């Protein structure tokens, strides 16, 4: 099957720090991928390069067979590549419903219907008209998660979806991610919670010091000595 996302020799430096150092990876459509690595290993920077939030120094990113590096974030989003953030980035002074509506293009009617469906999906319909800033941490996380679903993107990058979410909510979130995969969507997630990564992902990439250390099924990765060393030291 053809790759939906291809990253080739991606390099990103911040001053003297090379945050991402020649990473290459390839994602196939309809699967869930994980990205792990110690703090500062370049996971979020890699996401930011893919989504155009920061400009890569060299290398290429291809999405659905076309290059997207060099495009602006909003252009990449409209190609069908959505994301959430590690730190919550809802629009606090917009209501939950408005947070969803701003993302859509086209008629307001269908957009509103979809927004209401999604709010029901995460059981937040009663809070539709509440300012997003007044919602709890977990609720804001859900709003951010369904916000990216408004335009039905084909590839979704989730930056630490499980962090700070209570176990019940987490299960629902994970079920939702699986449901998306079953509908043919591709998910790429950064996560520190190993149970989540191991239970959900079909393939896991490991980053360390900006370089790809390993790649493979979760079971193999967990046993990989280089990975253990990166996390715990020699």
């Amino acid at each position, binding site marked *: 099957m053809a790759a939906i996302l291809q990253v080739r020799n991606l390099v990103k430096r911040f001053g003297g720090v090379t945050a991402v150092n020649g990473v290459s990876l390839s994602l196939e459509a309809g699967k869930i991928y994980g990205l792990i690595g110690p703090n500062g290993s370049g996971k979020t920077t890699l996401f930011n390069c893919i*989504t*155009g*939030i920061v400009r890569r120094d060299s290398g290429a990113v291809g999405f659905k067979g076309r290059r997207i590096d060099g495009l*602006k*974030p*909003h252009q990449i*989003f*409209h190609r069908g590549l*959505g*994301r959430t*953030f590690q730190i919550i*980035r*809802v*629009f*606090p*002074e*917009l209501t939950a419903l*408005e947070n969803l*509506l*701003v*993302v*859509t*293009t086209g008629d*307001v009617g269908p957009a509103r219907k979809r927004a209401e469906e999604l709010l029901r999906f995460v059981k937040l319909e009663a809070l539709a*008209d*509440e*300012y997003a800033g007044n919602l709890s941490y977990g609720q804001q996380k859900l709003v951010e998660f369904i*916000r*990216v679903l408004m*335009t039905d993107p084909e590839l979704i990058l989730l930056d630490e979806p499980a962090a700070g979410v209570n176990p019940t909510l987490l299960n629902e979130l994970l079920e939702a991610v699986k449901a998306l995969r079953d509908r043919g969507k591709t998910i790429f997630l950064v996560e520190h919670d190993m149970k989540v990564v191991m239970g959900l992902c079909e393939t896991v990439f490991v980053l360390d010091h900006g370089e790809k250390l390993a790649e493979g099924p979760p079971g193999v990765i967990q046993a990989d000595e280089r990975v253990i060393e990166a996390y715990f030291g020699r």
Partner: protein
Amino acid sequence: MKRWARWFPPAFALTLLVLSVYPLWATGYGIRVMLQLFMWIALAQSWNLISGLTGYVSFGHVAFFGMGSYTTAILVVQGVAWPLAAVAGGAMAVVLAFVIGWPCLRLKGPYFAIAMLGLNEVLRVIASYFEGLTGGGLGLSLPTLDASVRIYYAMGLVALAVTALTYLIVTSRFGLRLMTIREDEVAAEAMGIDTFRYKIYAFLLSAAAPGIVGGLLARDMGYIEPISVFPLVTTITMIVMVLFGGKGTIWGPVLGAVILFTFQELVWAHFPHAHQILLGAIIVTVVLVMPRGILGVLQQRYNLPRTV
């Protein structure tokens, strides 16, 4: 709050009616006070469009006012009818907004505010320097004409138009997208919103009315000079009115303009020098006590819809 919503439309209609027949019995002074109030509403409302909605603080919005004043004055001196000249003033202000916005709205954070401050200073110097066109530091006198009543209506119309425009924007997805820039520009970009384009739109819309009212006031005053049409204090007054009434709301700038202008007229008459100190005091108080302004506080407390 429902009851409030019911009596608002008739009260608003009555206000408009009273204002539209006011010149029938008003004194010349009364008309001039009211046309200045309309002007302040239009200015505050315009500043709100860019700074209240997108969060990009313009510290030089009076530049558009001055641009409109000079454009109108020069055209009137050339024999162009003042309403047409004022519209041309608005158009020139929009052109200026495009020229300055295209590079400066790519800057994020405080750089835009600083660039706007600089723009105003540069324009004032230019107006002083090109004596042939602007009369330089001596200023520019317009042919005498008593048009205060007509200018009163023109100003009122502009104030009404900007308020209506604000209503349309704030209650639309376009307006919500402008607000996402204020809330979190990076997230807005990542969610498919072309923030630069939206900022440019808001900025162009916010420049038109100041250009027009600048032209109208120049016509009414009959004389302009660089320091009278490019004063920093005019920008600051716009900002204070919006912060006081409630930034990002529809009626906040109107409320702020009415209250502060009334207050200013009263204080101005008695203590001409206290007025700037008071302005400063109000800024500090508003920022510390109610950063959302009057309507912002009410909106948050009673969960009012954006239509307020």
